[in-house]
Every structure is written in structure tokens, then in C-alpha cells.
């Protein structure tokens, strides 16, 4: 969690952003961005999970503890979950976790969540670019 000292930007490198993407929506959307040859910053590293409901908030803690500059969690839009309700739980979990991170002095601009469907390749591109710009702007404290 030692963001200040261990981030990549602190070492002068490019920031690394970890993205958890659900297999059925966002991962598919990211693939579609590729199929359409859309361009976005190369700072994002995707971890594929079956459902955003699989993403344990402790994974986010781990990523920050290891030195992530930013973490994003993406899933299907509410109501579109491949497993019906997984992302509804995701929503509550990360609403709480985000508050807790902020409370602990982790800049909330380093953590983002977004619903991105399998067809929203452009939204994936824009979101990744936006987070990347924000995180680059933050640099290190």
C-alpha cells in the first residue's frame, strides 16, 4: 500500500495500471477494440476474471501494496451480467472499498470502476486513456 514510494512513476518509468475485466463483457469489449484497431495507451495490463463479482477488493489492496499506479475494475452493465447478479455485488463491494481507500489516504483517482459491455470497444479505449491520463497527471506524491 506504500504508494508513495513504490509506484513505477516514482522510479521515473511509465505508470502501470492493472485492469480486472470480466470475461463476458469488458474483456470482450477490449478484444473488440483490438479487432477495430483502436489505439490506446499501453499502460494497462488486463487480468481476465469470469465475472467482476470474482474481483476481491483485497486484490486491489495487493496491487497498490506491490506498487500499482492505478487499478480499474470493469464488468457488465447492471442487469446484463452473464451470471445475472454478480455485478450488483461488485457495485456494493467497490463502493465501500473505494471509500476505505480514500479514508486510508490512497488517492481515489488511482482506483476506478466502470461498466463496459462487449460492444463498447470505444468506451473501453476512452476509459483506459482517461485513467491513464489521470494517473500520469498524479505522478507520485
Amino acid at each position, binding site marked *: 500500500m506504500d504508494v508513495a514510494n513504490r509506484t513505477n512513476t516514482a522510479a521515473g518509468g511509465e505508470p502501470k495500471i492493472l485492469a480486472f475485466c470480466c470475461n463476458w463483457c469488458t*474483456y470482450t469489449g477490449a478484444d473488440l477494440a483490438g479487432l477495430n484497431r483502436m489505439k490506446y495507451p499501453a499502460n494497462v495490463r488486463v487480468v481476465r*476474471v469470469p465475472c467482476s463479482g470474482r474481483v476481491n477488493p483485497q486484490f486491489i489492496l*495487493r496491487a497498490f501494496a506491490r506498487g500499482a499506479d492505478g487499478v480499474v475494475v470493469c464488468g457488465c452493465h447492471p442487469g446484463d451480467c*452473464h451470471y*445475472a447478479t454478480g455485478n450488483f455485488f461488485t457495485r456494493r463491494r467497490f463502493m465501500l472499498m473505494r471509500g476505505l481507500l480514500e479514508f486510508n489516504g490512497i488517492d481515489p483517482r488511482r482506483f476506478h470502476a466502470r461498466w463496459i459491455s462487449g460492444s463498447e470497444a470505444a468506451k473501453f479505449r476512452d476509459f483506459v486513456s482517461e485513467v491513464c491520463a489521470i494517473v500520469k497527471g498524479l505522478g507520485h506524491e
Partner: protein
Amino acid sequence: MSRIGVFVCHCGTNLASVVDVEKVAAAARELPGVSYAAEYKYMCSEPGQQMILDAIAEHGLKRIVIASCSPRMHETTFRKMLKKSGVNEYLLEIANIREQVSWVHTDSGVATEKAVDLVRMAVAKVAKDEPLKASSIPITKRALVVGGGIAGIQAALDIADAGHEVWLLEREPSIGGRMVMLDKTFPTLDCSACISTPKMVDMSAHPNIKLLTSCEVAAVRGYIGNFTVTIRQKAKYVNQDICTGCGNCEEKCPVKVKSDFNKGLSDRPAIYRLFPQAVPAKPVIDRAHCLKLTKDRCGLCEKVCPLGCIDYADEDREYDETFGAVVLATGYGLCDWTAMYDEYGAGRFADVIDGLAFERLVNASGPTEGHIVRPSDGAEPKTVVLVKCVGSRDPKKGKPWCSRACCMYAAKHAHQILEKIPGARVFVFYIDVRTPGKNYEEFYDQTRKDGAVYVRGRVSRIYKEGGRLICQGEDSLLGKQVRVAADLVVLETAMEPAAGARETAALFGASADANGWLQEAHPKLRPVETQAGGVFLAGTCQGPKDIPDTVAQASGAAAKAIGLLNKDEMETSPMIVAVDEAKCSGCGACVDICPFGALSLEILTAREGRWERAERFVCKVNAGLCQGCGACTVACRTGAIDLRGFRNVQILEEIDALWT
């Protein structure tokens, strides 16, 4: 050492033109656990796969990472390939360096760096992969259809025609449902009974179909392929095996009860069949009204029965049967408008009736033999008002949804009145006219040409004046109040889910939406499936629809059930959750999360510490129901429940791999 092999694909030039594949392979060779790394033009091609297989054999590789296109593309291909090797097909990870690297980044340097990172993550994860084995469950080759309306009948016939055994369960004494109550069907005006009763006869004669009437689902255990259903057979008091349906008993029975089937427009005896063409064509005793069963007198039916079929001692009984697939076709009911619309008289006026009652009035086999008369005095109405959207599209008083069929059957009713009563006038109050169906708009047009007057607006009040019913409302096109003095008012009321549908569906693990309509797995792409594997939806239980749509969906549900029953065994994904009972504290947090009802708490009795027979709760996973979403794993603080293939430790390793 893990003996991991890494194979980097060029994908022709798709990858290699941006990513320095040789550099990726070289970097992979330096990763902990990696024994071998290579690159090749097309990994997915025959020679590419052979190259991997050869490398596995030559270098004794135990785990495989393939850096190529998206796992959504070729994960299955490579899993199949691994089946030919000694490596378990789940000891495989794909690093997606095409869709998520070479196609989206232009700078070769950063793209290569990212590709190396993704390979590093995949290597870290694969080192923690466990060999998994897909298991298979045998499928009971028999379907259960719940509900004997046209949807259930169609689904049952389709499944039976495909060669599978079907049991159809109906809670009423006869199958037929709502469709047999109707007179004619729009837009073709063919006789409803003429097209539905032959299907009912087919049903009863079909060698693959077993009919269960006066039955309910009491309980369900099991899951896709193997549902053990407890069926409750309600007492019929008539030995159905012997009865020939001669009808003596029905004639002699002294009791008169309002007929539900005829919407109270006629009477029936206490020993009765639902309607003349009922299937099975044998009577049952209505225990609530039979004098023998309620007061222990009469006994006439027993005396007149030539075959001694009557058995007053008959009792409800329950028994278990196993089915591989289930089609829910529980249908709809009409909303009780009398409880919602006091301004329409709330049932005080005998000549304000609902659409289904009108169907019975106009039906040749109905109580009036097809003569449209006023229920109050039997006179022929000259002016009839049809009110649409009673209960529908009215979130304040009724239901928020559109009932879909009413626009068309209102047009049909108007047409029938104009046809049967010369000189009759018909006014139709409407909000919108919705006619999306083949030949529907044309039918509506014709009805207007025939003389039906369409008034745009809701009826705000119906009251009696001089023996006639005054319908008052605003004509919103004219912008003024109108009053129509009617002899008969027909309310085209809202469809609502049949009573008990939600509860019945829940027994099978399927759910209902906020309005009580059964929930399909996906509103667009999986409209006949439910979240519960092996449970399918047919007809109006899923939402309001007309007969063609109902039948189409029923055949769709049947096709899904047939597809399931055609298999002897069903392979289940091994990537599901598993519980470590030693760690599980039985708190049940995971149980609340599972959308499939795959988790439950059970009491475990075991020796523990000083206690010889300690009882505690543990979570059990129903492998047939778990779909592998893993949402439950987050609720488990201990990590006692974990998702195979995406275990906590695997994901943590992936994360750690990024920051060294």
C-alpha cells in the same frame, strides 16, 4: 521446477509486425519456472500445434503458456490440443498479445514491454494452475412440462415427437388452459377450439406423453439432468382407470356451482369435467361442494355409476419422479379489475364483464351457445363499449406493463359484435393501438371499416342511468368529455402471472422479475432459458404474449430441452467453486450471493477438539448448479470457498508478477 513452456505466436504479421516476438520469447526464458520458450508463425495451425506437442515431449513440459490472440479465440483449440499430450488441458494460460497489444499499440518498444508483462503474468498464474477434470453427469431422458395450456401442450408435443418421454403436469382437472376458453383467434378468426382440441387429443394419445391433471409440484431436489420432483396428485374421487366418461354422474348430481370455466355465466355440478372436450374426458369431484364429502349425504353419483368408479375415500398423495429437463409453462391470469377500479363499478354491474367472459359469451360451445347477450337480463346489447388497458399501462392503479394481446382481441371482439348483432354500435376506448404482428394492422383497419368507433382516452367512470351503463371519459383527440350509453361494457383487462408461478419457479431454482413474470437468462440472447440450468420457459409465464408468440416460444423451449435430452451425459465445467470444509465456518455469506442456488448450508457432525460429535454448519456446493462466476468467493473471508481455475492464489500471483 514447474517446467513451464512458453509459445509465442506471430499470427502471421498480426503480432510480429508490432511486437518483437523473439524478444518476448527470450524474456520468457528468463522467467522463474520456464524451461522452454519458442516462437512460431501460426501457433493455432496444425504444424504450430504439432510443434508444441513435440516440445512438450522433448522437454518434459508440465505447464503451457501461449502468447497469441485472445483466449476467447483459441483457448478451446489449445485445450483440445493438450488432450493429445500428457499435459492436463487446464494447465494452460493464454497471454493475449494480439487484441490487447499488437492491434492496439503502435510503438514496438512499449508493445513488446507490455507483451512481456502479460507473458510474465500468465507464467505466474500457470505455475499455480491445478489439473482439472471435466466431470459428466448422466441425464435422465425425460422432460417435465409444468402447465397444460397451449404453451405446455406445444412444448410437450415437440419433445415427445423428438422421441423423448414427457410428463405434462396440470393443476386443473383438464389440460387446455386459456386458449380453449377463447372463441376465435385473431387475425384469421379461426375457431380456437378447432385448432387446440385436436392437439389435446394428440397429447392424450401420444405414446411418449404422460398426462398428470389435478397435480402440483410440491418440492424439487437436484439440478440439470436430474431433477427429482415431488408431485402432489390431488384426489379426484373418480377412478380414472375405469371411468369411461359416460356422464351419468354429471347429469344426476344435484349440486349447482358457478362455472369458473364459463366465468360464472353458467352452473356446473359438483362432479364435473372442466368443459365438454376436456382431456382427460373424465369427471372429478369438487371436494368443496360435493354433498357426500362435505355433509356425508347424497351419494347419487356412486349409485348411478355403472362401473363403480366413485371413490369418496380417495386422498391426495405425493410421489417422486426424476426428470432431465423442465419446461415451465405456467401461463397467465387476468388481473382482478374489481379490486382496482371502483369507478367501473367494482363488479356491482352485471353487464360490465371482462374479455374472457365475453369469449365465453360469444363462443358457440359457451353458456349462451354463442349468442351475445347481457348477463343481467339476457337481452341483446345494441351498444357495446370496449375499454382497453384496464389494469395495463397503469402503474398507479394497475400494472405498469402492456399486455400485448388486448389491442388485437379488442378489435376481434368489435368485429364479432358487429358481425353477430346487426345494427350494433361498438365504441373502443384506447390509449394507443398496437398492432405489431403479421396481418394485425390489416385486421384492425378492417374492424374500423366495419364500423367500430375508436375513441382515444381512458374511461374515467361507468355508472348506471335508466337501465343503461354510462361510460364517461375524455376523447383526448377532441379534447372534450364524451359519454356513451352502453348496454354491455367489456373491459379488456391486464394479463398477470398465474397465481403461484413465482413459487413454482423458485422450487426449480428459476426466478421471477419484480412483476412476477419468470425471468429469462438473457432478455435478448437466451429468451427461453432461465438462470437454472435445464429449466426453460414457454409462453406467457415469461411475459404477456399472444398465441403465435406463445407457440413459437414453446417450440423454442422444447428445442432446448430436446438438445439437452439428446445427450446421454452432460459435461460440466470443472471451473466451479469448491469448499474446504475444514476452513468453512458455515457463516452462509456465500449462500446469499449465489444467483443459481448452488450453495447451501448443511450440518456437519464430526469429532473436533474435545467434542466427540460436534455439530456445525458448512457450505455445500451443488456442482450441477454452479456456473463458475466466483462471486461467492469474495464473500468468503477465509477463502474456504475458491474458484477452480481462478483461485485467489492464481490471481494474486498474476498481480505480483507485474511488480518485481
